[in-house]
């Protein structure tokens, strides 16, 4: 078929291109620009090549923060995914309680990050916070401002409280889309509850669960507001995650070059993980039968 070629059509793409350029490409290129230069002030820059990247990748400070990020992301995934599935399985599938449960589940998701941080900051205080005060009354020495373990526990509990709902809602959507016939067939085949979960529910949920893991990983890997509000990265450096460190370096110390290099490495890690997930998801799609009605 002959196609009409009209290069004027490119003009129609121009506004979008301009928008993307201003919002994403130009800032990113600025960062790239900073990452390969150094300055002693006075707006005078000179070329340093890959030096900042080598520095960053060998700096203990960066590697520690990266380690904390990974530990945090894996911990909350290990809690939120099973917990979310469990809650979704326990939720009613029909009746009046469905909307009630769904609304209750959606509530934490509506609260802004810094508010969540503030809520827990107050909640955990030993003098006026309900949680902190109660724990003290029980004789437990809990103080997120001085004890690194307490700070970690608080941030993890906070994230679980804030975001498990997302996993619940996604899993629930996966669960209710399973046709009733699967459960009937499983009963007739004599399958136990566990086998129904293992061979029907879990396989049917795998797509939504992948999305849940991806979203929760990306989001938790970029965590900033909650630890910043709660402890500002302390006590010591114990809750200084990459994002907090980045801000300290770029705005606190004004080390633009290393900070730019660090943010690019940070960005590439997230890009890599997203790419892995995308590949896995598309390969799952490729498994689907090529003809006939699927399921």
């Amino acid at each position: 078929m002959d196609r009409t070629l009209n290069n004027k059509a490119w003009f129609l793409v121009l506004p979008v291109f301009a928008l993307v350029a201003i919002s994403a490409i130009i800032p990113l290129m600025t960062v790239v620009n900073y990452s390969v230069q150094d300055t002693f002030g006075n707006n005078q820059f000179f070329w340093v090549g890959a030096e900042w990247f080598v520095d960053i990748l060998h700096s203990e400070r960066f590697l520690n923060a990266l380690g904390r990020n990974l530990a945090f992301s894996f911990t909350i995934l290990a809690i939120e995914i099973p917990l979310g599935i469990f809650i979704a399985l326990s939720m009613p599938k029909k009746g009046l309680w469905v909307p009630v449960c769904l609304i209750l589940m959606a509530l934490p998701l509506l609260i802004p990050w810094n508010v969540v941080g503030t809520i827990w900051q107050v909640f955990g205080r030993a003098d006026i916070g309900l949680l902190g005060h109660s724990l003290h009354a029980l004789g437990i020495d809990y103080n997120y401002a001085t004890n690194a373990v307490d700070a970690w526990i608080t941030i993890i509990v906070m994230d679980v409280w804030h975001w498990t709902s997302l996993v619940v809602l996604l899993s629930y959507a996966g669960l209710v889309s399973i046709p009733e016939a699967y459960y009937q067939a499983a009963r007739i085949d004599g399958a136990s509850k566990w086998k129904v979960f293992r061979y029907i529910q879990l396989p049917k949920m795998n797509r939504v669960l992948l999305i849940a893991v991806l979203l929760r990983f990306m989001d938790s890997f970029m965590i900033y507001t909650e630890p910043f509000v709660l402890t500002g990265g302390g006590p010591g450096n114990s809750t200084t995650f990459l994002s907090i460190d980045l801000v300290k370096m770029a705005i606190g110390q004004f080390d633009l070059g290393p900070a730019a290099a660090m943010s690019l490495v940070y960005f590439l890690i997230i890009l890599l993980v997203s790419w892995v997930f995308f590949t896995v998801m598309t390969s799952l799609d490729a498994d689907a039968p090529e003809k006939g009605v699927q399921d």
Partner: protein
Amino acid sequence: MAKITLDKLAHSYLPRPKSDADFALKEIDHVWDDGGAYALLGPSGCGKTTLLNIISGLLVPSKGNILFGEQDVTHLQPEQRNIAQVFQFPVIYDTMTVAENLAFPLVNRRVPKDEISRRVSEMIEILDLGDKAHKKAKGLTADDKQKISLGRGLVRHDVNAILFDEPLTVIDPHMKWQLRTKLKELHRQFEHTMIYVTHDQTEALTFADKVVVMYEGEVVQIGTPEELFDEPAHTFVGYFIGSPGMNVIPADVNGRVAQIGNTKINLQKAYPSLSGNVELGIRPEFIKLTGDDAGLPVQVTSVEDIGRFKIARANINGVTLDTVLPEGGSVPAHPKAIIDPEKINIYKDSHLVKGEA
């Protein structure tokens, strides 16, 4: 394997049904033979799926009992009834291979390992799935998936009955025929009691020894395909079975004479004088159009060629009759209709009235 007794079964989805109309399944009282192939046939919403769910144990009937053999299973769960079911959409376990799918019901019932592998390989052979045995079931075509669902029932040698809930809905037309043939073959081989729900008369008539025709929650006739064709017990059966359906014409019947408008037709049997809604039923196959003097004068309004034969729509005193023209036949210049009196059925309030010879 067992005979199935439906003992005064009825079901309503309402907690306190008041009138007859509240019942999705009106009272049914029947014994189905061990090893029989039954088809439940009827339009959507006629109660056939309700009946099937009562048999499989997904529904407990509001009234009556259901027995497998001598055992009352009315209140037993599906897993306790020892039945198998094939659903409208193929149900397979995605993450398992074909062989694992077939082994699943046996593994759950703790059958010994060597027994499982023997039965599974036997079943794979029967279902012609040999080349796919160790493939993931997820990637198969719909008809192969349906075979697996069926196989999961057949591997359990002792199932009381195998139920089919419109199993060919998602199968490509050319595969439907093959799968149906396979089903018949398996039925002959294993002699399980099979119950097959469908709204497709071809499927029902080719599959079943006995067809149970349902209409508005009521079983209107149980019979062989021939009986359904020759003596429909209800005008609905007449319409529903056959293509085109039976002609049903309002008539006055008295003794051996039926009167349609001004036209009198002699009957083979004697009927008491009937009042109420009396109708005469005659299949289009048994009305012949001739150019001779004998017969009723008709006007042919349209002729439809449907391949093997033609349907001529004829008009007698304002009443429309479908008639079948044989292959190559044409409408005579002055058509007369000859109705085969032996094939006439008389209905009162939609139900068949038996005449006396």
